[in-house]
């Protein structure tokens, strides 16, 4: 996954030596986000004496932020379409409760419960999207109502109690790891090489393949752009960016391989992120969402069914909130009436930190995912340092404000 989607704003080769600087200046937002994440990680890595990037903590970081990332994917689509969804935290909690009641109280098989939960999530999205799309009621109001309604519904469904534990196979969704397919001896010998106790060969291999694929896709895109006479980014930047991203990828998968391997949720997140990045950037429907958010009147007059598109954005959000709700419940191994409380704010913050615009039409999936991890690393790092929840909240708030101010400042400078 290329972190910087530079192709849309690519420029012709100008041949001047200042190009790297110019290119950086015009893409400050994308690179800024990447550098901010790296800077924050390095900072916490140092002040926590290496705890942040230890194998256990990397695994934790991924597990802790998985449901935020999953919902951020849907939220990005909603925000790009020019709307907002305040109900996702409540919907997530409600779906977790529904899963618990179905599996723990009613003893339904997991496959049935998961299917029902996803469908109910979609229906919830449809119920809210209906009023927003076809009655033109502002999404802020409809989903604010939804936030209250589904918070209440979870309380009612759980009768105010925590319900658990879940069957083993359900817990695995959030807490399980992909088993190593290679013979144990292979891992043992590699472990000797790296001087660690064990190595999950599969994790290592996936990391290497993903890194190679990333470079290959990047080079292919570059070659194509060149064939069309556009050059996306200067060679130096391209190499540096890819080196950083692939090194990070290999480092993380290596760390994971020395612990318990690849978490199941990492696979879920990675696949969903790729699917949504493709949907938003490379498909007709994705393009239409950007047009809808960029100028809904012009989109409508261009023959785009803007109402249906808005409706679908909310259905999609509901399904993803349901998926996140199940991951969350499985991770805690109980459904509680408080699950997902105020989580919508973290999700929305992640999307805005990732460069989306409140007025719609702007934002990328990769940006939203990086934004979510940026918040996640902040949370995690500050917790390890033992900073109180009071300071944590203040710092997170200021980071959100700083990111958006940076955006606005950039935009003003450009015009």
């Amino acid at each position, binding site marked *: 996954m290329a972190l910087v989607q530079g*192709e*849309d*704003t*690519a*420029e*012709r080769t100008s041949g001047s030596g200042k190009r790297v600087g110019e290119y950086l200046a015009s893409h400050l937002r994308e690179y800024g986000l990447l550098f901010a994440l790296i800077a924050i990680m390095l900072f916490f890595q140092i002040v926590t004496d290496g705890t942040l990037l230890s194998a256990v903590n990397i695994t934790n970081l991924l597990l802790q932020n998985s449901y935020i990332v999953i919902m951020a994917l849907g939220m990005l689509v909603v925000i790009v379409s020019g709307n907002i969804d305040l109900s996702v935290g409540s919907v997530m909690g409600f779906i977790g409760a529904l899963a618990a009641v179905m599996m723990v109280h009613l003893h339904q098989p997991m496959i049935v419960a998961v299917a029902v939960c996803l469908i109910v999530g979609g229906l919830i999205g449809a119920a809210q999207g209906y009023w927003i799309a076809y009655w033109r009621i502002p999404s802020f109001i409809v989903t604010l109502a939804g936030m209250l309604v589904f918070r209440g519904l979870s309380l009612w469904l759980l009768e105010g109690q925590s319900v658990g534990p879940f069957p083993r196979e359900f817990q695995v969704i959030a807490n399980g790891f992909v088993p190593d397919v290679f013979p144990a001896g292979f891992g043992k010998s590699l472990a000797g090489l790296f001087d660690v106790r064990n190595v999950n060969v599969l994790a290592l291999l996936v990391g290497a393949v993903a890194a190679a694929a990333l470079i290959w896709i990047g080079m292919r895109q570059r070659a*194509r752009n060149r064939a*069309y006479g*556009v050059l996306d980014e200067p060679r130096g930047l391209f190499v540096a960016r890819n080196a950083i991203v692939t090194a990070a990828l290999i480092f993380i998968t290596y760390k994971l391989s020395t612990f318990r391997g690849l978490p199941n949720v990492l696979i879920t997140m990675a696949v969903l992120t790729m699917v949504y990045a493709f949907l938003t950037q*490379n*498909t*007709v*429907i994705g*393009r*239409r969402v*950007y*047009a809808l958010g*960029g*100028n809904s*009147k*012009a*989109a*409508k*007059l*261009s*023959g*785009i*069914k803007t109402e249906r598109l808005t409706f679908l954005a909310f259905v999609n959000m509901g399904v993803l909130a349901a998926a996140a709700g199940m991951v969350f419940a499985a991770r805690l191994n109980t459904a509680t009436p408080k699950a997902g409380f105020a989580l919508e704010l973290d999700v929305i913050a992640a999307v805005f930190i990732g460069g989306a615009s409140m007025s719609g*039409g*702007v934002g990328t999936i990769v940006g939203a995912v990086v934004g979510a991890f940026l918040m996640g690393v902040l949370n995690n790092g500050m917790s390890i340092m033992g900073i109180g929840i009071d300071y944590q909240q203040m710092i997170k708030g200021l980071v959100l404000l700083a990111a958006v101010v940076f955006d606005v400042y950039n935009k003003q400078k450009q*015009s």
Partner: protein
Amino acid sequence: MSTLLEMRDITKEFPGVRALDRVSVSVRQGEIHAICGENGAGKSTLMKVLSGIYPAGSYDGEIIFEDEPVAFRDIRDSEDRGIIIIHQELALIPQLSIAENIFLGNERANRGVIDWHETNKRTEALLAKVGLKEPPTTKVDSIGVGKQQLVEIAKALSKDVKLLILDEPTAALQESDSRKLLDLMLELQSHGVTCIIISHKLGEVRYVADTVTVIRDGTTISTLDASEGLSENRIVRDMVGRDMTHRFPERTHQPGEVLMEVEGWNVWHPEHTERQVIKNASFKVRKGEVVGIAGLMGSGRTELAMSIFGHSYGRNISGAVSIGGKPIDVSSADRAIDAGISYVTEDRKSLGLVLDETIRFNTTLANLEGVASAGVLDRNEETRVAEKFRDALNIRTPTVFQKVVNLSGGNQQKVVLAKWLNTTPQVLILDEPTRGIDVGAKYEIYTIINDLAAQGKGVVMISSEMPELIGMCDRIYVMNEGKLVADLSAAEASQERIMSLIVNE
């Protein structure tokens, strides 16, 4: 009668355009002074200079009011001197009551606490003056446009008005309401209020005006005195009688058989549901024909086009549209596009383009399927299509990855055209295709229009600029208050003829 207002040699320039060129107007105490001119002649600009919307210093020339030079910095300045302007688009707040609107910004209050008794009493008195029988507490959105106009006038009277300026006050009014408003003007005049009325409707001008000043292309053409008799022919000639300032490319081919036909088209206003905006309009376009629709702003031209294009305007739409003799479904924009109709909007920035996106994004927006297979975009193909149109329409930009917000008006208009040409339409409806673009770009747009006609497409061209219609069209329909009142061939059409059809209804 003494002179109340004198504007001397007012010159106002915008980047690249001289909107006013040494315009002089002199208004006597107690008269009703009409200012006439075509759309874009500079009437509204002149009134904005007078009322301080364009502050002193941003124009050249002198304004003398009550025998002393004035330099208004903003609209409050001019209102303090008793010059009040009532704009064509009313500036009332619909959710507030009549009384609240009248005293908005001028509240009858004691230390910030509004005295409602005083407010309502004063409002009643003012409403009696303008002959409006409504309680002061009535919400403005519950009364019709005609009554809202009276509220505006009452608001002006509450400010001790010396010079009342009405910008096209009857444009949105029914016949009977218009008459009442004109009578009110005469009544106010008898109470010593001086009025300036901007109007296209010569019947009205003759009814109320003591003096008429005609403006054309930003200069004063003539000042006529009612006591010497106002001849409509004279006014019309002065309004339009300019030399052709633009040239038009030659067109050689002949129109073919009928391509699109609209019959019995009726449309009602989307909010004021009792108002019929389009009344039984029927017209046809032949293959390779450029058909013009002339009419004033607000006559229903845009509404006609938008309602045909996917019912994008209005409600209770009835009538039939056919292409090549077959009835087509135009009930949504995508169906209209599929049927072969394109509509290039009047307002390219808010209705035509996604400004923060690239030329490529906008070019393919109305036909994304054309550059996709199974819903997946082929971005290289997309680039190719965008570059093809960039070259064909001569869009001046180094790359199709340029954001359209950075383009000039003419180039933006070409991007909108590219978007619609990319849907391979049979009929193109162009709404003010050359508004706000420079002369050179206009010529290029005209050339594109001729090329389209030569390819056998039907072109409907809506324009406020009559020379443009006469220079470009094979036939011209004249629209007046929602009706197509005439169908003129190129040979019959002249600016005088069209203008008299517009003003004489």
